[in-house]
């Protein structure tokens, strides 16, 4: 048949069409490529205000010639675009996500409801305390629960994430030493620590001194002894540490640091393992930050928002950031007060309040008893999975693990040349999100696996079998399948090197045509 070529409506004018879903492995245009000049979604309520012109309202030298170059799309296209984007993303609500150190557990839907109640969402952060008694009470009660869980005296809820909590904690440490008239310059950190720890130390104006791990994967006590001196402001520790191991020498560690006049800082990202079993306060920690977006079921949102409260021992309370929500026992009203020697504000307002409301709901729903079971089961799942992959991977630090364990694929690499990265990509095809890779840095070809308590025993067993399957396969095919993986995802293996080399950090109009050329048909 002969057909007139009549693509009357395409071309460089924009307004690309797209219809495909991830049912199939289709390309998805950038929202700018869907834009067509004059198309719109927006509308605003009727207010009856006088319709002055912009020139009546804004001095000429401030007035822009043109508004910012945003895309112009219909609501229909916008919704379809974003819905398709969501289908190009894995999530906890789709399946297991055993990303070590990140505690990707299921977040009960109840918390979504709790954090979207209009009486919470509609409150302006600068409203006077008399108008915000409900919010202040929620924050005070959450602070109280977090203190009971950690064994500390008081907490600030301002930090917006774990790293901001770390910095807050280190500033508290600094303020304490300063107030004691003996400023110090160094903070000790184990070599297995999370990267935010040393970065936060730097931002707090300290120098990082690394403490080596011993063969068990624990703080090397002898090394610690030699490092602790009166220029050490404190020690930052995760316990269980990032190898998933409990620092069993914690009492001795605390003694050493405290005797030298230092403070003990607890990175609470791994609190999930010890709820109701061990409390940082009882171990001698002076400062604890918590990642509510790990242990307390604030969902990760693709990278936030989270919340990183910091709880402290009695002697540090007077330094906490202000303003702090507190109950005035005399009037029985809640107020905002700033501690006498406060380090100052950390957050523009009161912290990630709606995330805090989620954590509050989570703690109330689980209760003290439920939280303990959470920890126990998190450990049980990890311990089970570790035993099930004992013959599949190397286990360089083979102590009893807590909520996560670190395996090494060095054995597989030796045997087949297949790296942890390849195995991770191959695991995707089996329906699982890969574990954390190449962290902590002290383990070769590290795979850091944290199943969490919300996965059923059957799911944990399925993970074990998937690990077994992909390693057996690599042994059989020399790693061909793993190196070609993933083949079932919206895109295949992504070129990270080119991204960094040819930096493209925003969409530009010239890209449209070149992309269209690159993607001749939606079906690959």
């Amino acid at each position: 048949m002969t057909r007139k070529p009549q693509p009357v409506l395409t071309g460089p004018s924009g307004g690309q069409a797209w219809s495909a879903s991830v049912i199939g492995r289709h390309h998805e245009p950038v929202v700018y490529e869907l834009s067509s000049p004059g198309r719109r979604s927006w509308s605003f309520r009727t207010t009856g205000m006088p319709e002055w012109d912009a020139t009546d309202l804004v001095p000429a030298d401030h007035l822009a010639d043109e508004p910012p170059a945003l895309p112009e799309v219909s609501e229909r296209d916008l919704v379809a675009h974003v819905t398709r984007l969501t289908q190009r993303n894995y999530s906890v609500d789709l399946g297991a996500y055993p990303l070590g150190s990140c505690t990707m557990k299921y977040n009960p839907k109840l918390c979504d409801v709790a954090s979207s109640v209009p009486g919470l969402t509609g409150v302006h952060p600068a409203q006077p305390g008399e108008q915000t008694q409900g919010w202040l009470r929620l924050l005070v009660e959450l602070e109280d629960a977090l203190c009971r869980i950690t064994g500390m005296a008081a907490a600030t809820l301002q930090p917006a994430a774990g790293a901001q909590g770390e910095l807050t904690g280190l500033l508290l440490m600094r303020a304490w030493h300063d107030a004691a008239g003996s400023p110090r310059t160094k903070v000790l950190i184990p070599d297995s620590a999370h990267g935010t720890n040393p970065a936060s130390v730097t931002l707090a104006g300290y120098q990082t001194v690394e403490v080596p791990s011993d063969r068990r994967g624990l703080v090397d006590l002898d090394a610690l002894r030699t490092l602790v001196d009166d220029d050490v402001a404190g020690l930052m520790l995760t316990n269980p540490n990032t190898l998933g191991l409990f620092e069993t020498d914690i009492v001795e560690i605390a003694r050493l640091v405290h005797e030298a006049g230092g403070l003990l800082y607890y990175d609470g990202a791994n609190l999930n393992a010890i709820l109701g079993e061990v409390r940082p306060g009882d171990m001698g920690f002076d400062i604890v930050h918590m990642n509510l977006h790990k242990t307390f079921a604030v969902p990760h949102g693709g990278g936030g928002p989270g919340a990183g409260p910091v709880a402290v021992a009695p002697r540090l309370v007077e330094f906490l950031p202000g303003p702090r929500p507190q109950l005035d026992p005399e009037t029985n009203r809640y107020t905002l007060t700033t501690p006498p020697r406060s380090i100052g504000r950390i957050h523009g307002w009161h912290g990630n309040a709606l995330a805090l409301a989620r954590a509050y709901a989570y703690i109330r729903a689980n209760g003290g008893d439920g939280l303990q079971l959470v920890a126990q089961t998190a450990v049980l799942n990890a311990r089970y999975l570790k035993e099930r992959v004992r013959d599949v991977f190397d286990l360089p630090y083979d102590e009893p693990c807590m909520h996560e364990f670190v395996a090494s694929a060095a054995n597989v690499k030796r045997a087949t040349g297949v790296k942890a990265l390849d195995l991770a990509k191959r695991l995707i095809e089996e329906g699982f999100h890969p574990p954390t890779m190449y962290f902590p840095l002290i383990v070769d070809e590290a795979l850091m696996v944290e199943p969490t308590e919300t996965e059923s025993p059957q799911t944990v067993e399925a993970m074990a079998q998937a690990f077994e399957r992909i390693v057996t396969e690599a042994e059989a095919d020399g790693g061909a399948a793993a190196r070609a993986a993933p083949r079932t995802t919206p895109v295949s293996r992504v070129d990270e090197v080119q991204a960094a080399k040819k930096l493209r950090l925003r969409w530009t109009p010239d890209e449209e045509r070149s992309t269209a050329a690159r993607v001749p048909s939606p079906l690959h």
Partner: protein
Amino acid sequence: MGHSVPHTDAEIAAMLDFLGLASLDDLYAHIPDAVRLAGGLDVAPGAAESDVLAEIDALAAANRPAVGGLVSFAGFGAYEHERPAVVPALTMRSEFVTSYTPYQPELSQGVLQALFEYQSMVCALFGLDVANASLYDAASAAVEGLNLAAAATKRRVAWISRAVHPNIREVVRTLTGPRLELREAPLVDGRTEWPDDLGEAAALLVAYPNVLGCLEDVADAARRAHDAGALLVAQADPVAAGLLRSVGSLGADVAVGEGQPFGTPLGFGGPYVGLFATRNAPYVRRWLPGRLVGETVDADNRRAYVLTLSTREQHIRRAEASSNVCTNQTLIAIAAAIHLAWLGPHGLRELALRCARGARYTREQLLRIPGVEPAVDAPTLYEFALRTPGPAAVVLERLAEEGYLGGVDLAPHYPELGDAILLAVTETRTRAEVDDFASTFEKALR
């Protein structure tokens, strides 16, 4: 007890059996007794879903919300705006909500592309070249802006306009205290008076419009900064960007801002999202804070996205990292991107225009009231300060009794202005509301 844990008793028994353990307690057997907690947590036992929600409802009922409760004229860095239905509908999609930072790009193209689009729009808002994938809030963005300037210039003095939001100034002081030397530039008639000698400044920080709603001379600040070898960091209002010249075009090197107006409820102050953009300067590769999404290709040469330049970040550089930002505010950034795409250029302009019209009208009505006067003289857009006869706190309290959140009392923050209230008017306020408010205001002064 809640039901976060799927395991049945029988399953727990089977797993313990496999591990050769007698009880869950045994999982902690290697932990020294000295530090173990006996008797569990002293936290109330778990409650049913409905009981928890009933509690939350009771807490919510103890608030008088600015949206849905009072009629609000409060701004001061957090604004009531219409939130189109598409924004929550799309943002609550669980693939976004319940995913982690996109470390595995093949499983995360959705979040990555959404952030890439967000970065593109933030650049457009500010007239700059490079934006990151979000920071915690405006305050943390300001902190990072100064840190970047300090790193880029290898200097440690920063000048901050007194008309930058007091909370932001305080956060900057707390968080950069150990490393930067901060100096405050005073105000004259609501605008910043930069000193002639800026010294060895790394940065100037100006707000546009500033916290009092006034339009600063950004171009002048940029000239002064550049003359002194410093960067200009501008905290720009992204709604105002619908009408005002972009801070990039006025010479700012770094723009920071608060993205809350785009799709995020007031929520007692968070989570919000810190906007951050800068020029395509050499310092980007080394010092740009926060996560960055870059475009690349996959193994089949198809367009794909990935977190990039992570060499800047803590998990690589550890102690040498210039920023410790890890978890940021991705979901809020995505909400902002969706809202911005819904607005488009003309919707954003219309939004800013409607705010400005409402503010002009409200200001005029209130200025008719005897004793009410402008607190400062400079031109404003949609936020403005008025002087009241008698303590603002009292006026505001009376207004609250009548159902109004009449603005924010400036006395604790700017005592030099006397009794003053800061009011913001957005597209949500109707003329009828303003008329009623004005007459209530007049009564409240008696």
